[in-house]
């Protein structure tokens, strides 16, 4: 029991922080521009593919730095030449535009790299078990992921609270119009925000892909869950995104680890159903089986009772 708990906690933390790296960029973009970027996970995918392609030629470590920068530039270009044109048609058009871009990026990735999984793996330097507890290994690469995520988190925190740029961003989150009136170059700020936000997604892609796989569906697979995170945490709130990421990361890992199901519950209530009952699938459902669906359930319940999310303050 103890080993399950410890490992679930560790794995939940790794996964949760990864979600945060994605959701922080999404939140940043949303706060500044009011756009929920549907294509955010696609930039995560681009990060993975760029890093894979670069790692063949220049190795893993340079790719770790260069790939997110390339993704950031791609994001900035998308804002400059795409989103900015659509801005005048309103938020729904912007959301639909990013939806279309997500669709298109997946096609482009397939066009260039094909439809198969790509062999993008952890560097040999990190390919060893860091420690073994109760006979279960904890891989060094996971520790590395943890380290990078925390570093990014601290860097974000410092930039947002201690620097001038951070103050402008914070101001823009709460009073976007005021910032423009104070004479800041809003289009440039927007472009930079989009670039930085997508670069964050790019980093997530670079470090997560060796564990989660590099394939054309990877954006789609992760896309909706990061929406759940930002909406659950409260749109536009970085703190909310952080708490929600960890919550969802940990809840999901714990759900898988504990074999509790309806049969146990029914046994507790002293009920029993036949195997050919019309709802037999409902009576035999178990927690690991539905684990990955729990975030969606959490989202719906949250939105019904508190549409602002955990820490959200802005009505959308």
């Amino acid at each position, binding site marked *: 029991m103890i080993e399950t708990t410890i490992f679930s906690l560790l794995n939940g933390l790794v996964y949760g922080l990864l979600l945060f790296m994605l959701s922080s960029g999404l939140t940043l973009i949303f706060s500044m521009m009011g756009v929920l970027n549907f294509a955010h996970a696609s930039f995560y995918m681009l990060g993975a593919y760029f890093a894979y392609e670069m790692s063949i030629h220049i190795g893993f470590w340079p790719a770790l730095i260069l790939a997110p920068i390339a993704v950031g530039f791609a994001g900035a270009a998308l804002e400059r030449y795409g989103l900015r044109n659509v801005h005048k048609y309103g938020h729904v058009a912007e959301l639909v535009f990013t939806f279309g*871009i997500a*669709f298109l990026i997946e096609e*482009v990735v397939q066009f260039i790299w094909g439809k198969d999984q790509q062999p993008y793996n952890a560097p040999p330097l990190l390919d060893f078990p860091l420690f073994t507890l109760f006979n279960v290994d904890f891989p060094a690469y996971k520790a590395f992921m943890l380290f990078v995520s925390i570093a990014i988190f601290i860097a974000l925190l410092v930039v947002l609270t201690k620097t001038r740029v951070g103050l402008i961003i914070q101001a823009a989150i709460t009073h976007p119009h005021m910032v423009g009136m104070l004479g800041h170059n809003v289009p440039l700020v927007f472009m930079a925000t989009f670039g930085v936000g997508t670069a964050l997604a790019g980093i997530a892609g670079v470090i997560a892909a060796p564990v989660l796989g590099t394939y054309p569906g990877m954006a789609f697979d992760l896309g909706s869950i990061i929406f*759940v995170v930002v909406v659950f945490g409260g749109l536009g709130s970085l703190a909310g995104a952080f708490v929600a990421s960890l919550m969802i990361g940990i809840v999901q890992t714990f759900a898988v680890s504990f074999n509790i199901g309806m049969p146990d519950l029914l046994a507790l209530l002293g009920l029993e159903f036949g195997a050919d009952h019309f709802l037999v699938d409902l009576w035999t459902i178990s927690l690991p089986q539905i684990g990955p669906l729990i975030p969606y359930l959490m*989202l719906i319940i949250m*939105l019904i009772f508190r549409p602002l999310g955990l820490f959200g303050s802005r009505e959308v």
Partner: protein
Amino acid sequence: MSTLTDMRRDMNARMFKQQRNMWIAVALVLGCLPLFYGGSDFALTVSIQIGMMIIFSLAYNMLLGQGGMLSFGMAVYFGMGGFLSMHFMNMIEADTVWLPMALLPVVGAFIGLVLGLIIGSFSTRKAGTIFAMISLGIGELVAASSLIFVKFFGGEEGVTGDRTMGPEMFGVDFASELEVYYLVAAWVFIATLLMFLFSRTPVGRMANAVRDNPERAEFVGYSQRFVRLISFAGAGLFSGLAGSLFAITYEIVTEETLNAVTSGAPLIMVMIGGAGYFIGPIIGAIFYTLLSTVLSNYTEIWLMYVGIIFVLTIMYLPAGLTGLLLMHNPIIKAKKLKRILPVYGKIALPVIGIFLGIVGLLEVGHYAHNASAGDMTMSLFFVSVDTSSYLPWIFFTGILVGGFMLAKKQAPSVAETYEEVHKEALGGGDK
């Protein structure tokens, strides 16, 4: 006073007559279409699919276009309508219920309505992003459960049935594709008419008001939530009806009717067709279905083309294809189309060049990337192309760049002529 009333009555009568004639024309077209197919079952099947998608995307537009609600989970109503209709169809076959197959869509519509009322009761409290996210969450949940609850959804295989069973109406048993076509056509007509009439009712009009300015709508005395709920339930109803037609047509319903692709399709259709017009979704449904069922047999990268068209439409044609057509309405009415066509003709060549250039580069690139060794000749636009040489690359890049530069040079004069003729046409109309 009385003349004013008379005039108004007169105008209403004229409008009514015009609209009635239009609907009769629609019915005639639907009825005669198969005569042009020369007995091709494929053309019939594609038409049936288009009909289904017309209902589905019109229903979707009750939310997006009329109500301003962006949904990522419409497949829930389409799919559940389909699944329950299929179970109903099997009950008909087992003689546990009595219902002519032609009326099965009523069942699907009812299911869609009930689900719409239940889910709408909590999801339509807010519009905008909150609504979009709830729809996404519910969509994901239902799609995922469809594989878990095997007894009801039939797992990967889905649920099958036989549409030829049950009491016959007018001696029709729906064994042939043509009979199914007429059934779907009839329902397309009914559903389209009902949705059109709904958009003309006070509640339908209020949906627009709530979309544009919810507070003001409240002041007029309409609860915005109630108005949204009505639109939502209506959209559910017609989506369920479309799902039912799916069950009848394919005699199988699987999890694909509930998944994200099905949820995304009406959004793409509506945006390409134009959300701001009643016929926008219809045009979008025809266009998208043709792309996906026909183009996919000619190129593996058809989805790339759909993506490009979709993104370009949103960027440059916010009113969709319909908006583009209707831009010329006053000009056609003023009979000034002749003046603008030559200018269009002049720019057509460079535009075709751009089109050929893009398609050529993508296709040659795709082929060269995936071809087997030594097999470097592909057939493109009915010509053999050697993809190993630089020639096709240079050629297609050339016509792309050339076309682009020419088009850029001519675009201002085209826009100018359009503005001019358009203004004249409007001015002429006023006189």
